[in-house]
């Protein structure tokens, strides 16, 4: 089959690789009909994760049709079912899964020992997301093996298009969970750093969960425009405006009640000097992640407010404003999205017409053109927001 593989830092290529096989009783093989490139794929692309190997198949946002089923798959799945698959691989049987913390599945990372060295304890395995998180082949391919298919896959009806349901695999639940972590109460103002797909869905979800105002911060006018038009958010371009001042001003000095970091480990800063400081340290591996957005979110948040860190981080950050965080009674909540917890309720919202996540798609390309898709997405060319790949 054809599959998009990581070759070297900043290089991916679509190669011929062997077809996946059923290796465990609860596996399914899915013929992929649509997959997408995620912002976190860009972190892997850069080679900042040390656990990538040449030839790893990328991709953790995908959907398709079940073409083969292991004998142990529960819950009445059948060959021919149309499914969307959540990115965390979760067994459904461990204590974490049963508490709904699917991205913390205790059984799905066969390389848990490596993850424990890096993080203390291991989170769940993830498709195409480095060997630290399992070494699983990803879904930017014609076929993909889905372990614990009865937990990971959600059947979807034929009358909904791929574009409407594909993002149930990751970015929609991720954005939704970010808003949920904010414990929004009536009257709340929520600020969102990063107007990428997760930031867009976080803004939409914050309104769904009752926020009074949502303010989205980015530097790309087309992304801010989308946040304004599609999510109904107010916007701040951090290259033109001092974010802290603007947020203080617009909330009459209080600061936003909740702040979502939807930018993550490779965020930028308006000040070239401050950006360079972290960029150089990152390049020298003195810190692995650049936390500009997170620092600003902490400083901006109202006293006693909540930070939702949903953008991906991989390792260590520097200059964490702990004094501000501690003295002002802030709360920080975080996590890779527990996708399986949100898929069904969000599918219901899509079905009822409350949500149409397809608005983020700006590019639909052939799988064979994946390298070009990564390039356009990474460099924000052609007003790129989301690339969907069709095998």
């Amino acid at each position: 089959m054809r599959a998009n593989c990581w070759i070297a830092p900043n290089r991916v290529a679509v190669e011929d690789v062997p077809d996946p096989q059923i290796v465990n009783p609860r596996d399914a093989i899915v013929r992929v009909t649509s997959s997408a490139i995620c912002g976190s794929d860009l972190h892997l692309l850069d080679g900042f994760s040390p656990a990538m190997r040449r030839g790893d198949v990328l991709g953790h946002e995908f959907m398709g049709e079940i073409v083969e089923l292991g004998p142990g798959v529960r819950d009445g799945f059948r060959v021919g079912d149309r499914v969307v698959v959540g990115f965390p691989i979760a067994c459904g049987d461990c204590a974490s899964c049963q508490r709904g913390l699917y991205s913390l599945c205790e059984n799905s990372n066969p390389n848990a020992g490596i993850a424990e060295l890096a993080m203390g304890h291991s989170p769940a395995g993830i498709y195409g997301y480095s060997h630290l998180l399992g070494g699983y082949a990803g879904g930017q391919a014609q076929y993909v093996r889905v372990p614990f298919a009865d937990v990971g896959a959600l059947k979807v009806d034929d009358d909904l298009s791929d574009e409407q349901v594909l993002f149930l695999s990751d970015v929609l639940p991720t954005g939704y969970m970010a808003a949920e972590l904010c414990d929004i109460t009536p009257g709340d103002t929520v600020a969102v750093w990063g107007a990428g797909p997760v930031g867009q869905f976080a803004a939409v979800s914050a309104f769904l969960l009752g926020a009074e105002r949502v303010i989205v911060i980015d530097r790309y006018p087309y992304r801010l425009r989308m946040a304004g038009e599609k999510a109904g958010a107010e916007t701040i371009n951090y290259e033109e405006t001092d974010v802290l001042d603007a947020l203080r001003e617009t909330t009459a000095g209080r600061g936003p009640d909740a702040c979502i970091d939807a930018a993550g480990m490779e965020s930028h800063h308006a000040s070239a000097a401050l950006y360079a400081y972290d960029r150089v340290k990152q390049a020298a591996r003195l810190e692995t992640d650049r936390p500009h957005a997170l620092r600003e979110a902490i400083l901006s948040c109202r006293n006693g407010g909540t930070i939702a860190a949903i953008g991906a981080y991989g390792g260590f950050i520097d200059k964490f404003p702990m004094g501000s965080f501690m003295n002002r009674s802030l709360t920080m909540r975080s996590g890779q999205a527990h996708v399986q917890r949100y898929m069904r309720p969000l599918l219901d919202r899509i079905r009822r017409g409350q949500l149409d996540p397809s608005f983020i798609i700006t590019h639909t390309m052939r799988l064979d053109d994946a390298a070009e898709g990564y390039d356009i997405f990474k460099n924000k060319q052609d007003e790129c927001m989301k690339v969907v790949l069709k095998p």
Partner: protein
Amino acid sequence: MSRRSTTGVRSVTDSLGIERASQTTGVDGVARFLGWLSLGLGVASLGAGPRASRLCGVDDSRAARTVLRIAGLRELGHAATLLIPRRAGWGAWTRVAGDAVDLTALAVALRSRRGPRRRRLVLATSAVAGLTAMDLYAALRATGRPRMPAAERITASVTVNRSVEDTYRYWHDFYNLPRFMYHLQSVRRSGDGRTRWAAKAPAGRTVEWEAEIVADRPNQLIAWQSVDGSPVPNSGRVEFRRAAGGRGTEVRVELEVTPPGRKVGALVARAFGEDPQQQVRDDLRRFKQVIETGEITRSDGSPDGISVQQQLRQRPGRPPATRVEWPVASR
């Protein structure tokens, strides 16, 4: 002589998990002997004065007597550091330092002595040199890393999301063990309530032994040990405890194994990545997977499931070219 800390964890005294207490008794014997020797020398030097100096070939001069008294006091110091603490530690090195001073003094004296006085001096020097060797040995043993013992104790634990009853029942059926203990090839019934175990040994060999259950408390504990004459004398126990607040069952395993070939065998095994401690930890992770999900988790990078060796030798995260063997069929 393992102790339990307040958290219930057995204290581990070094990176190999070996207790120092059982190792240092022999060393302490030597150190104590040297301590008594020091005491004797010290008392002799202070009390016997001129005779002691003649014995070791030194002139019975005023200066020599003063030096000898200082040396005597020093010996009493050695005796104190060696005999008073419960265990010889850095104290043993004070004797080595003293020996160095003595040898230097003797070497200086040797340059100017002739005839019978020189012969006595040579004798004294060789005696001190012999004692120095003994002191050095005791000091190195008292403060260095202890030797690997014949038997190695391994402990590991895991929490599983199953009842104590289920967990006990699964483990009690020893025939289940090879499913998650990768070094085991089979466990078979062999009559008299005994079981016959076959395990992979380093260098592709197989070792077999018979084991019997020595304690069995339902839903609490199972203990077993190999019967006499086993090529790999070993024993093990697994304890089950209900975790607080519905958090499942805590499983604690303790194994004691005498690896084939003892020390050398264990070191060779370690070099090939077959660290028993790591094996047991991996075994427990797989036990958790099997009892919770019914299967061993496999990825493209780690097609055989969790194991430290596989984590180090990752295949690329893409489907394997060859037909993988279906564990589904073999189960």
